């Protein structure tokens, strides 16, 4: 019973940050810009958020949760600003989008590692390669949390999970219900049609990449506040790449992508739970950690036939070309 609860609680707290990063990826890719940069965007966003939290925490009581929410805000801003680099490269400079993504990731890692060490040394006077954040507090919804099994979905919730759910709903609304979303999705199918309709393709794609930066940053800082309890180079665990796999698996749609993320989350927590339940050495958790990836690959074998990437994905839009 208890194992199942942990499984659900841990699974959710992993799946949701992944989900919000994947939604960011959906925004970018549905607009036609391949985004392999999520890994770098989430790291850079988390860096900015963690830096803000470290700088501002002095103004609040030690137990205050305000710095965490400020960190989320700054992580989104940081991710957004950094994503503009990808947008400029892909939209304005017409660079190869895959290459740009890889380079952005490498640069993010180099930049944040350097800045973290440099700032720790020069501003905080402590040579260290991380900002310690601590984990966020959790809460349970009274009443609901005591229902068997289902209650686990309402127990030990990180506050950021609510933020993510709210952000996901807003993202869904904008993508599917508003003119902006309509333009965005059209850009990924036939940018010429969008241009002919008098909407600037470059601007829509630029905005889409920025949204993806903001949401990736949010995902990154949530990981920093849950799994690692700090910002350090270990934030680059490849979750950004996992988010890409999730959105491809989810056929570039928000709903199905949620399922993909939940599968990841639960497979991951199931791995940990199994190690404990079977009383195996800690090293075995590494073996079980391969499970989410193996499952994804197997699922992809079954689903990739029916999946359709946006038609204009990765296509550089050149106005002059007819």
């Amino acid at each position, binding site marked *: 019973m208890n194992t199942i609860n942990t499984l659900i609680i841990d699974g959710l707290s992993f799946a949701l940050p992944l989900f919000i990063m994947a939604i960011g990826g959906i925004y970018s890719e549905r607009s036609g810009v391949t985004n392999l940069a999520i890994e770098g965007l989430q790291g850079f966003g988390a860096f900015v958020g963690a830096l803000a939290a470290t700088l501002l925490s002095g103004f609040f009581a030690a137990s205050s949760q305000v710095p965490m929410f400020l960190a989320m805000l700054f992580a989104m801003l940081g991710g957004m600003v950094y994503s503009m680099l990808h947008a400029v490269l892909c939209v304005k400079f017409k660079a190869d989008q895959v290459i740009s993504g890889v380079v952005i990731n*490498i640069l993010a890692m180099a930049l944040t590692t350097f800045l973290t060490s*440099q700032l720790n040394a020069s501003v905080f006077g402590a040579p260290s390669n991380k900002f310690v954040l601590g984990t966020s507090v959790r809460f349970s919804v009274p009443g609901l949390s005591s229902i068997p099994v289902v209650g686990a979905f309402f127990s030990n919730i990180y506050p950021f999970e609510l933020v993510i759910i709210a952000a996901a709903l807003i993202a869904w609304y904008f993508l599917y219900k508003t003119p902006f979303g309509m333009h965005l999705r059209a850009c990924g199918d036939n940018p010429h049609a969008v241009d002919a309709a008098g909407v600037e393709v470059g601007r829509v794609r630029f905005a889409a990449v920025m949204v993806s930066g903001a949401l990736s940053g949010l995902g990154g800082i949530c990981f920093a506040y849950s799994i690692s309890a700090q910002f350090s180079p270990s934030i680059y665990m*490849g979750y950004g790449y996992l988010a*890409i796999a999730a959105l491809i698996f989810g056929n570039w749609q928000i709903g199905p992508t949620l399922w993909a993320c939940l599968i990841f989350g639960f497979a991951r927590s199931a791995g940990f739970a199994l190690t404990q339940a079977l009383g195996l050495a800690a090293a*075995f958790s590494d073996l079980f950690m*391969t499970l989410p*990836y193996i499952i994804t690959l197997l699922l992809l074998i079954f689903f*990739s036939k029916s999946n359709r990437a946006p038609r204009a994905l990765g296509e550089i839009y050149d106005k002059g070309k007819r």
Partner: protein
Amino acid sequence: MKRQNWFLTLMGDSKRQKFTIPILAILLSLLAGAVVYLILGKNPITAYLSYLQGSGLVPKGNYAAKKSMLTDLMSLLNAWTPMLFASLSVAVAMRSGLFNIGVSGQMMIAGLIATATVGYSSLPAPVAKPLVVLISALVGAAVAALIGFLKYKWNINEVVSAIMINYMVRYFVSFCIKRYMADPVSRQSRAISSAARLSLMDTEIGGLKMDIPLGIILAVIAVFLVRFLFDRMELGFEFRTIGANPLAARYAGINVGRNLIVTMALSGVLAGLAGATYFLGYYGSIQPDTLIATGFDAIAVSILGNSSPIGILLSSFLITVIDKGSTYMSSTVGVRQEIGSLITGLILLFAACGAFFSYLIARSRQKAADAEAKTAGKEERV
């Protein structure tokens, strides 16, 4: 009214831009790096010189006992070898239109299996060393070919499957090391036997103690083999055709599916050798809980080198110099060595803008030509 723009002249036509644009990217990033040094209050020239000193290209002021410029240079070559192999691996795939982002995973699994099978055995060096090379090449080929097969058979995007396999390998390697191979002190895998090691460590020559990388010979041979493959071989022509236009390749009667797997296998061989020269040459041990960055850096190095073998020879050397030299730079200049990766990152960033640079050049040429045509046209009408 003919005013030649010196910059445009210097950048040359599209053929010359293959060289001039990467050089421009490097200069721009060194410039940007210099600005960072200035902000930190350091002299960028001293800093850049210390990179060269640290990598044994320029003599240092003084050396410890049994050390010299040559020892530093050997150590540089030792680090260069895996980077060169890995970048070639990326390039072979890239020229054929495939994106091998799984080089890191292929390196690690090749290194792990070679270590487990040969590294702890008591085989004599003449048997052990070739066996290490062979096993890593085969393992790398098998894993990469699997990625090609998944794409061929089920149309699974090679980027996604390679990433999945990267992480499977990462966790699997961690498990194997922690469970079976861990050194209680370092927590990495136990050091391999010197017979199996592809670098001759701490060898005394002429009063100097140095690490002699044997792999670099193989790597340089590989550069010329890859060049021969793409320039002169039928198979290379088919790879290039698929890379440039897979539809036309099918139309020309090329078996795209088979070639896909063959390309990936070849790329995997090179990745496997990168793994062998990294884990059983340069380091002699494997670290758990991390996916090495070489495979990702190699993508960018390969782009900087225009995916051409000779270009990669140069670009991978440069990146290794920055990487290797940053330790010495840090100790002499007093800036954290992470700035090395930052400069590397900037070089790669500017290299990625290559298409934009050539677009800018083409556009300003066009503007100049248009202006000329316009004046000529007007004169005609008058």
